[in-house]
């Protein structure tokens, strides 16, 4: 069994925050056993939150290359951010964030933000539609795919969807009106779209408080108003999503007031659904408006303007979301990632804007990330057709997330992303799965902790032998009775994994013991049904 099988089959996490085998969790205190249990079970609900920055975000004014100050001022005389107001990263003094991104700067300082520089793909396309499709389908730029990268991942993981017995919840949720192409599977979309009652109201009235869109008091207007009211009610009471949302309330004081920040409004819902116990893997939210061909900055002050407002919303929403997840106790389960269909032209245009470009930074955020800056500042002078050169293929980032966060095997990764991509380290050690270890012979005998643990019905026990040995690996119960023999033979030097199936065994602690030549060791493992 691999890790993701475990993730699928383990105890439903929904029960854990409240009850453990019928007992309130609190009764167990901080027993190490419990911590292991909670940590392992929580891993069953790893979540990816994808933030789409629609329109093409200007990466250069988002993550500012402070090592090229004169070139920066040179290519963008009318939109350059004054360098003294740029937020400098303490461990990367040559990398700065836009002054509106105070929240994300704090996340970076807390070790909860990763910046991947210069992300694009070969032969980039500068059409919004096509570029968006490329990012969502993870295709080569000259290939059209009919399925989304997350749709393929979810389909690979849940081939029986929507009739998967272990996954009663939606696999993916789009906050909004239309399910992202990124969630498209071969036969169907793997996601559902939901809107909160509030945003729904905004949608049907589409007035944003203007009042002019309220249906008039005519026969048709009255019937329309009635149907809209029912629609709001139906959405509000839609099954398990509503149940999950009701279980958890937002806790952070950092959330902006409703209606002020559309991204924050969407993430607020995501936060509640995650904390409320929905087992949904992927959430997709959107912040649009980045296509700033003109008036990207204010005339009087380049630190303000449309782009600053958008980055401020992104930063504030991300910060509040992270704070909320922390207060709700689910921070360790959630990885966030931003993307935009392209960055923008290096040189600004005459109307204080930027035209369509190519490479741009991606952000990964959350407690699980391996924090820092991946890659270097893009060169503002060594360009291709006036555009930045690519440092990382976006599919390398996807591959790293799928592998290190969701535990997708290399074989499956090939199938999902359609070819191999080099991985970069985006998830912290200890949290990351499938991190490749250098293939050198072990120097010592070792018996490793089984994984997953606790488990049901099976787990993997790894061991290492530095030279050919007669290996015996057996399982005992707490009374010392032998339960199973996993290995009993000569083996050459190497790293090994043995599978143990707990079929028919009761819940409880068991011991596994290795003997290899004169080396012996034993560890405990827990079966939890």
């Amino acid at each position, binding site marked *: 069994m691999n890790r993701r099988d475990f993730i699928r089959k383990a105890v439903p996490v929904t029960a854990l925050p409240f009850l453990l085998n019928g007992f309130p969790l609190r009764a167990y205190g901080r027993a190490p056993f419990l911590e292991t249990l909670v940590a392992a079970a929580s891993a069953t609900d790893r979540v990816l939150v994808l933030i789409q920055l629609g*329109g093409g975000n200007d990466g250069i004014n988002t993550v500012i290359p402070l090592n090229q100050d004169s070139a920066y001022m040179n290519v963008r005389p009318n939109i350059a951010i004054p360098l003294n107001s740029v937020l400098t990263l303490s461990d990367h003094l040559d990398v700065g964030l836009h002054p509106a991104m105070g929240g994300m700067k704090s996340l970076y300082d807390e070790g909860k933000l990763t910046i991947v520089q210069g992300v694009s793909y070969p032969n980039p396309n500068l059409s919004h*539609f096509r570029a968006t499709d490329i990012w969502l389908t993870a295709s080569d730029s000259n290939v059209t795919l009919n399925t989304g990268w997350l749709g393929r991942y979810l389909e690979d993981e849940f081939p029986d969807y929507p009739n998967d017995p272990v996954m009663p919840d939606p696999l993916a949720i789009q906050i909004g009106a239309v399910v992202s192409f990124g969630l498209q599977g071969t036969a169907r979309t793997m996601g559902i779209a939901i809107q909160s009652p509030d945003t729904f109201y905004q949608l049907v009235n589409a007035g944003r408080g203007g009042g002019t869109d309220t249906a008039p008091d005519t026969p*048709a207007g009255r019937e329309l108003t009635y149907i809209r009211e029912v629609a709001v009610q139906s959405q509000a009471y839609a099954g398990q999503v509503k149940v999950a949302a009701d279980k958890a309330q937002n806790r952070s004081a950092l959330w902006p007031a409703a209606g002020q920040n559309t991204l924050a409004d969407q993430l607020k819902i995501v936060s509640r659904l995650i904390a409320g116990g929905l087992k949904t893997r992927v959430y997709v939210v959107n912040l649009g408006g980045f296509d700033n061909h003109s008036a990207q900055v204010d005339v009087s002050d380049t630190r303000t303007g449309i782009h600053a407002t958008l980055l401020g919303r992104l930063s504030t929403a991300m910060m509040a979301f992270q704070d909320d997840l922390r207060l709700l106790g689910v921070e360790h389960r959630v990885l966030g990632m931003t993307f935009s269909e392209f960055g923008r032209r290096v040189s600004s245009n005459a109307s204080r804007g930027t035209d369509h470009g190519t490479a741009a930074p991606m952000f990964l955020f959350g407690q699980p990330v391996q924090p820092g800056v991946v890659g270097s500042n893009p060169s503002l002078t060594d360009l291709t057709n006036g555009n930045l050169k690519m440092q990382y293929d976006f599919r390398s980032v996807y591959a790293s997330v799928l592998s290190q966060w969701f535990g997708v095997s290399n074989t499956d990764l090939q199938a999902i992303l359609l070819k191999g991509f080099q991985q970069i380290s985006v998830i912290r050690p200890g949290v990351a799965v499938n991190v490749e270890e250098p293939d050198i012979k072990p120097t010592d005998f070792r018996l490793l902790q089984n994984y997953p643990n606790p488990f049901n019905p099976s787990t993997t026990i790894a061991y290492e032998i530095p030279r050919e040995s007669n290996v015996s690996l057996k399982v005992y119960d707490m009374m010392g009775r032998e339960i199973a023999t996993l290995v009993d033979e000569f083996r050459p030097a190497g790293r090994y994994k043995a599978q143990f199936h707990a079929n028919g065994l009761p819940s409880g602690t068991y011991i596994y013991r290795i003997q290899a030549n004169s080396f012996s060791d034993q560890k405990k493992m827990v079966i939890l049904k």
Partner: protein
Amino acid sequence: MKRREFLENLAVSSPSDHSFHSLTATSPRNSTPRAVSGIEPYAGVWNFQTASHLLRRTMYGARRSEVLLAASGSLSSVVSTLLADQPEPSPPLGPDGISWVHAVYDQAYGQNEGIYRNYLKAWWMGLMVNQGLSLREKMVLFWHNHFANEATDIQDARSMYRQNALFRRMAFGNFKQLVKEVTLDPAMLVYLNGYLNRGDGRNIPDENYARELLELFTVGKGPQIGEGNYTHYTEADVKAAARVLTGYRVTGSPRDRTLLNQPLGSTFDPARHDPSNKQFSSAFQNRVITGRTGADGAKELDDLLDMIFAQPETARHLCRKLYRWFVYYEIDQAVEQSVIIPLSQVLISNNYEVKPVLETLLKSAHFFDPINMGCYIKTPVDLVAGTIRQLFSELPDLSSWRNYPLADTLRNTAATLQMNLLDPPDVAGWKAFYQTPDFYKSWINTATLPVRGSYTDSLVNGIRPRNSSTTYRVDVLAYVQRFTAPGDPFKLVDDIIADLLPFDLTSNQKEYLLYHVMGLTHTAEYEWTQRWNEYVANPSNSQALTITLQALLKFVLRMAEYQLA
């Protein structure tokens, strides 16, 4: 091209027949405005919008080709077409194509009757989906709702078919004649116990049919103005009418075993008739129907109907029901005076022929008053049959054996949405057409609205009925290619709105469709055109475009506006 240029071009090129009245554009009035127009002929513009309105109300969905055809003619010619006689369809079949509508009631038939009932319902659904430019099927449903009978109670699919065929044959026929035929209809005789209504011996007349004849089918119940007095009839009138109606029996039906081996139908049995005189109240001018004996006893029915149809209320009652069926549920004093009463006079002066009434109503200024547009909440059948008609470029032939599973799925969907064809809730028909204060609103609740949405979603995503290997899916590319400029996103959205919704959307709503649902980017709207042109150049590469159009269509079909007609 910049967005503004797009909009300006649109404003210039927009054909006048798409210039919708907008909901917000109605003139300000103090309280719930109602149309002040009457049944005088409509003299306003005849265009895409007005033709859409007419077809949406008289058919199940208005296909663009039909609307264009209608708009190219005159209102008068279109109404003539709608009211033209149509050939009778082939009767329904059962499993394996077997014919059962003329079957003898034997054990084999009895065992399969429940199955035939579903086949009958699916067959009728198929007639609605495959209807031509005709008002007939909507009138068949009107009569079924007016003379509401439940197949589940009657338990004889043959007689349900026979009644349905009667409604179809007399869809725009003579109301008085129809009431007579319904009175003698074997399904009705069973449903309201007419076959048990005897005046011989110690039998007490069964008043069931007589009561509904007065209360629901003809004069209608007025305000109660005294004990047992409902203005238009009294309890004593119910009893007297019941005695008039004694003696009828059903033939070929297991309900009357002694007549089982006759063909399905009804007969008058003088021995069971009450031959005494029947005294009616002042509501009927104290009329006495003289008792008749022998075979002449059956003539008392004509006397009864003559008496009932001499009451102006009978015509008014039917006209109110037609009004609620085609226009709106609210009948205030103004509507009563300027529409109902004049229409009832048309009915009376035409000796109860319904066609002139329909003709007058459907050509009236009142019918086309903007205030009466878009206020009709679609019935489940409107939604189910109408949406498939609206969206599919090639309609599946539901009379074909191969497509029975689809017809059955549609029938079942309408039933889930609370409109189980041939099984209305009770003898009063569906509440949407009589229950104050909700009326049409009773179709929509938190249980049914999501089902409406999932149904329209399923047509776009593809629906594979149970026991079928065929997936029926809207070809969204073919759908948008009906329009003149699918590559122009603004024009496309306007055309879709005009095609699917009864009134225009606000600019905010259109913005949402364009920039959120279709995913356009401000100032880069030309990319839609590029995208479309790329598809036209290379039609095999259509998946991404298809998904966007599917999302757009599903979204519009889930808008509250789509529930209106």
